[in-house]
């Protein structure tokens, strides 16, 4: 078994989760506290990857990233970068594809905090940013952890989008889920099984750790 696809999968998942954590914070904050009328539209858009077939996202991204269409040619001329069949392209696709998995848990975490917490901080003269980073975030650690891990696991499990825009280049876009698919297609079941077992074991271990940590965090907060 070539370990490269596995490393690539975990590299993609780590970068995607870290990027999304940064991107999702302001979005989640806005969703939790804004009184904007069109909030529903934004919420629906963010949730689309939950319900859209990966093939729809993959198809539109293939067109968007292709140098024959305006976005792809603009990126190519401006940055000299071609997103289709490249690792940065996979990162962008994964960020779009896993967005709700980061935003929703953090938003839920913020909404579950007592409103008095935020009000008290404002009353004591703290600004919105300081309140967010020093008061609100430390109080929803389990939500942030859940968001990170769900995003990570969801990206590890990505298949359809990568298959459509990746081009299966070893070491660049050939992630583990695609490697499994290839081995099955080449009738090489033992190799497919090795990849699959590793993915199963690692993702299970990650989820197990998270739920255990979450339980202990919640217990610490509510002393019996």
């Amino acid at each position, binding site marked *: 078994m070539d370990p490269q696809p596995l490393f690539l999968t975990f590299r993609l998942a780590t970068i995607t989760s870290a990027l999304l954590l940064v991107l999702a914070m302001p979005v989640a904050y806005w969703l939790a506290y804004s009184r904007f009328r069109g909030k529903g539209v934004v919420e629906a858009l963010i949730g689309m990857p939950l319900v859209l077939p990966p093939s729809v996202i993959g198809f539109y991204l293939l067109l968007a990233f292709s140098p024959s*269409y305006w976005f792809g040619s603009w990126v190519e001329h401006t940055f000299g970068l071609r997103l289709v069949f490249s690792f940065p392209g996979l990162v962008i696709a994964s960020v779009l594809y896993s967005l709700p998995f980061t935003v929703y848990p953090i938003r839920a975490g913020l909404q579950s905090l007592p409103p008095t917490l935020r009000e008290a901080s404002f009353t004591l003269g703290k600004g919105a940013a300081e309140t967010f980073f020093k008061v609100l975030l430390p109080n929803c650690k389990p939500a942030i952890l859940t968001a990170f891990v769900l995003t990570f696991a969801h990206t590890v499990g990505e298949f359809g989008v990568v298959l459509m825009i990746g081009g299966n*280049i070893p070491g660049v876009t050939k992630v583990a889920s695609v490697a499994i698919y290839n081995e099955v297609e080449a009738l090489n079941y033992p190799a497919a099984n090795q990849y699959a077992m590793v993915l199963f074991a690692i993702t299970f271990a990650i989820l197990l750790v998270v739920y255990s940590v979450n339980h202990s965090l919640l217990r610490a907060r509510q002393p019996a």
Partner: protein
Amino acid sequence: MQFLRPLTFLLFILLAGCSKPSDKIIVATAANVQYVMKEIQAEFEKGSTDSIHIVVASSGKLTSQIREGAPFDVFVSADTRYPEEIFKNGGAEEKPKVYASGTLILWSKNISENELTLAMLADEKIRKIAIPNPETAPYGRAAIEALKAANVFEKVKSKLVYGESIAQTAQYITSGSVEAGFNALSIVLAPETKQKGNYTIISDSLHHPIQQAALLLKHTNTSPKKSISEKFYNFLYSEKAKAIFRKYGYR
């Protein structure tokens, strides 16, 4: 347990709808044959009551599915290796037979026909080249052989992008995501892809022939699909079918 009874009833209703066996046979078809197959199907169904369903995927995927018991009746592959594999594992009574030889092309959305050569792939303006996955697709293997024979393989190795079948590779080429790519002549001659870019035929002296075989999958003697499957399988090798294959660039 209140919900169990309506649930069972619902399940029954749903399953009842698919208990009647259809007498249409299913022909598992490799992606490069999909367009020519439509015409073969029309010709076969003309003036008879027999009809067929066509399922399209890459030969490798279809072989995996057949091995795991997919209800296919005839397998029309893109190579000879996969049908041999099924035959060896007892999935068929008789050996696979070659029905046609495929033609490899180099295809591009924007590069003009007289500019398209194997040597020009080494050029700097070519950033990406699409090729069907050589591990599973015979056209991909032939493309690698041709690149090596033309002494450009080492120069273009890093530009290669692998489609999972001939169809996905065609999608990469026609969407302009790659500058050029390898494909089957049968794909560019199909009405669906005509006028999409330019192509040049790769000389068959540069690669092993792409022989494509079909296989009549195993049926029990009592199976209602057996006779139609045999009829269709034999039709693939008839003069009528051969003429259609030639029209789509098969030899």
